[in-house]
């Protein structure tokens, strides 16, 4: 069976649907199956579906080269390595500390620091070194300009927020707060370097322009999400208000109250030692 010939003969729209949008839908669907089912086989199939979806999304830039949307799949393939390193590294650091359950060996802490550090250096290398995600030679993936400023700015904002929260709401959390301030300042330094130092492919002016677009993007996402949550709450509130009031029962009679008192009286007190 000539699969390449079959794929080539497909309509571009159909190709984008089957090889890009369908795999995107497979990821949440697979995760839903794997998390909601009690059957082991459904859980395994769900995980496989999500994993297969991610692989197809990453390959979409080659399977559907005509669709500009598949640049997002290309970006996913490029950043999935450093992102996994960071997430697994932080997991190892967290659970090799003083946790009551699921404690990992102390030696995992060093490995975790190494993995997270390598992940961040890898991402920084995509800005200032030869690792920049490129669709073709010297053509930077446009979604890299969306991902990188959003990630680095929000990390700085959230770390700063977390540091102040630990200081103001926490009890004797100065050391932890200082660690979060350090992360925030580190992210700020990376941002300031990006705003002033050109990489081999990413120019400082492009980064600056996209940084403010990322701010607009995050503000828009916050506004849109809040609006939809408000509408959702309004719909539920309107429906609940339209329901008839629940039936109330008669208050207890004097006889019933007397009986309850007797039962309580019977169970109060205890034997003397």
């Amino acid at each position, binding site marked *: 069976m000539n699969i390449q010939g079959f794929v080539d003969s497909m309509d571009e729209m159909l190709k984008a649907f089957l090889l890009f949008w369908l795999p995107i839908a497979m990821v949440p669907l697979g995760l839903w199956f794997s998390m909601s089912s009690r059957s082991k086989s459904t859980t395994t199939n769900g995980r496989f579906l999500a994993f297969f979806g991610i692989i197809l999304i990453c390959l979409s830039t080659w399977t559907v080269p005509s669709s500009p949307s598949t640049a997002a799949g290309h970006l996913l393939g490029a950043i999935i390595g450093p992102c996994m390193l960071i997430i697994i590294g932080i997991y190892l650091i967290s659970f090799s500390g003083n946790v009551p359950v699921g404690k990992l060996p102390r030696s995992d802490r060093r490995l975790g620091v190494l993995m997270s550090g390598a992940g961040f250096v890898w991402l920084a290398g995509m800005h200032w070194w030869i690792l920049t995600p490129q669709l073709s030679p010297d053509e930077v993936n446009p979604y890299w300009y969306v991902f990188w400023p959003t990630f680095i700015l929000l990390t700085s904002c959230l770390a*700063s927020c*977390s540091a102040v929260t630990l200081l103001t709401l926490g009890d004797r959390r100065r050391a932890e707060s200082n660690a979060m301030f350090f992360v925030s300042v580190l992210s700020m330094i990376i941002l300031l370097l990006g705003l002033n130092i050109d990489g081999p492919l990413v120019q400082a002016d492009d980064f600056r322009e996209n940084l403010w677009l990322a701010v607009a993007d995050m503000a828009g996402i916050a506004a849109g999400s809040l609006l939809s949550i408000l509408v959702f709450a309004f*719909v539920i509130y309107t429906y609940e208000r339209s329901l008839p009031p629940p039936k109330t029962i008669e208050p207890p009679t004097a006889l019933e109250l007397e009986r309850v008192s007797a039962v309580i009286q019977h169970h109060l007190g205890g034997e003397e030692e």
Partner: protein
Amino acid sequence: MKESSLSMTWRMILLAFLLPPLFILALDITFYGSFKGIDSGVTFTRFANATLTAYTLCSLFLLGNLFFYGESRNRPLAPLVGMIFATLLGILSTWFFIGQGPMLLEDNGSVRAQAIYNIVHMFVSSGAIFLAVCVALGVTFSAITSQKPRSDFDLEEE
């Protein structure tokens, strides 16, 4: 904690969240005398597109959640219909506003191309937001678990 003190704490937390972009703005004004790199037209277009897309996608997600809400209420139709209308409103307003011309069209030639671009853009932004939240929460948790264990007994002794 007193109410005024709590309100002050919330304000401090909000200010801490906004501090990094405000700091960059302050630096820009100090060194360049203006908001360098900000094109208000393009920024507004991005904000509007992000708002419309986030509203529509979030409404779709919440519409799915209504399915589980209905489970405990004998599957009423009224809230489901209400939320379907709210989601349709998002889709239609996105289509309408993008179709008005260059106001919401970024580098795309048609309404459909812009709508698809908005969705893909939202996925990438959401991925970046998800990773940033993971890093911030993870590092906070790591910082807490790396300290020596405390006990209430120690606190009482002090």
